[in-house]
């Protein structure tokens, strides 16, 4: 069990390390910051005119873009975990009795920080091109909370994938999964416009309730059962990913 118990100080040092490493990985950092912005511009100006959502498309699409960006950014955690395991540095950490939880938590927290920055950037650009959220700070805080929970869940899930993959290239495959999942959801087009069989999936996958919750909070519309579903999905993914990551970490280092 000692491999997995984290001393809080170790986890903090690991977070500092991973934040610094992400800051210095300029290519990845630029991609994770610029890609979401470009995608948003693409949707708003290229496809937006052709999609009827009953309101300004920018208003409809921003929550979806935020989530796409979060999923994509968090997925890069898989690559950093696999890369870390490929070098000898994890072994040194282990001989220094740094637990697996601290090592993984470092990656996860750095991912959350990285993506929080990207989210703020996307929001700023969104406001510049006409996104007008409801002025209600408590709701903004709630939205930030849901987004952070989603980031945390996807980052841990991603870390678990990183432990499963043998090479950084393989780990990168998870990025595609995370990027694909927001498409068959209510992120870019209303679910009602999809064929019935796809609607069933779109309605019941984790991304849709999270997006609906963000929409409700940012645009001050009724949320229904979406927030409860969103939180349940995120917590479920988070807990399962943490357990799976713990098991995989132990198996990977044996």
């Amino acid at each position, binding site marked *: 069990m000692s491999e997995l118990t984290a001393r809080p100080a*170790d986890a903090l040092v690991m977070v500092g*390390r991973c934040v610094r490493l992400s800051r*210095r990985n300029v290519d990845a950092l630029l991609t994770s910051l610029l890609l979401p912005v470009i995608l948003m511009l693409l949707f708003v100006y290229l496809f937006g005119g052709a999609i009827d959502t009953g309101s300004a498309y920018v208003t409809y699409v921003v929550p979806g873009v935020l989530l796409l960006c979060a999923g994509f950014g968090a997925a890069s955690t898989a690559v950093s975990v696999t890369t870390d395991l490929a070098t*000898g*540095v994890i072994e*040194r*950490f282990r001989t220094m*009795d740094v637990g697996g939880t601290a090592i993984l938590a470092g990656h996860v927290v750095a991912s959350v920080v990285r993506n929080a920055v990207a989210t703020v950037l996307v929001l700023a650009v969104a406001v510049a091109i006409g996104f007008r959220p409801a002025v209600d700070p408590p709701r903004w805080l709630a939205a930030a909370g849901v987004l952070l929970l989603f980031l945390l869940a996807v980052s841990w899930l991603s870390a678990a994938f990183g432990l499963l993959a043998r090479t950084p290239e393989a780990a990168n495959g998870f990025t595609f999964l995370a990027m694909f999942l927001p498409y068959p959801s209510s992120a870019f087009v209303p679910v009602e416009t999809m064929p019935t069989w796809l609607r069933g999936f779109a309605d019941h996958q984790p991304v849709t309730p999270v997006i609906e919750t963000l929409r409700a909070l940012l645009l001050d519309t009724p949320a229904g059962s979406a927030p409860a579903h969103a939180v349940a999905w995120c917590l479920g993914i988070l807990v399962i990913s943490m357990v799976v990551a713990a098991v995989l970490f132990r198996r990977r280092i044996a």
Partner: protein
Amino acid sequence: MATAPPAVETVELRKSYGGVVVLDGLTLRVARGSVHALLGPNGAGKTTTVRILATLTAPDGGAARVDGHDVVRDRRRVRRSISLAGQHAALDDAQTGRENLEMMARLAGLTRSAARRRAAELLERFDLVAPAGRRVATYSGGMRRRLDLAASLVGEPSVIFLDEPTTGLDPRSRQGLWEVVGELAGAGVTVLLTTQYLEEADRLADRIAVLHGGGLAAEGTPSELKRRFGAHRLELTMHDTTSFADAAVRLGDRVTHRDPVRLELAVTTDGSGTQVRDLLDEADPDRRGIARFTVRGATLDDVFLTLTSRPMAAGRREVAGV
């Protein structure tokens, strides 16, 4: 009063990977404060031994203790007294030398300011002050290895494992690393190092354990090993059977080869003038018996090759004969 346990102790250590036996009952003791070299060809089990001792791999059988603590049951305690530096420098390329050391020092439990001081001290000691602010990615092989060694010292370990510390280094960097190991030993740290180079083991170690086929092929001080397995061979051709018999009696069990028909005798020697002269005098005090002599130069590497190329059973007998 109980005597202090040896720094490192393994008893009948066993480990296989996917059906391939890597360690086949290795028993080893490393005295406190000594430098011990594990010498052997690739696949002899050196790295596996070090990984087990450093708590990174669990053995399949047998026991291993560091500072008296079991490496499986008392892993935490073991980790407090050890550190590992290897052939693959375990550092973050994207962090500077100083950042790497400060991070390791913090993980070793030092406060932020103490970590900063410790890093500065180690940078100084390892001659890394100038490149301290540069990312490790820009370091040369020798610099990385020095930084890696510095990183392994942040927690002031009492036992340090060096896994092939000089593999792939140029002669000058190798020299530098040898000096550091010498200093460590001088400061009372127990060093267990693995190497493929006899010269390195000879130069650094108080005792050498030659590993072969997952077990101990020979163990002793460098001079013992040299005496036993001989770096050079002094070959004597005697004038007649009488002088042959006399010389054989005088040299006793040091004779490694005898041929009464050709009147030839051989003994091992370090090849030095003094020793060869002494041996000649001893074998033939009247200076009449020896017709010819030859000193055949065998390098230590040849000895190593002989020792590690014979079948395991023969290797084992060598230990039993000590």
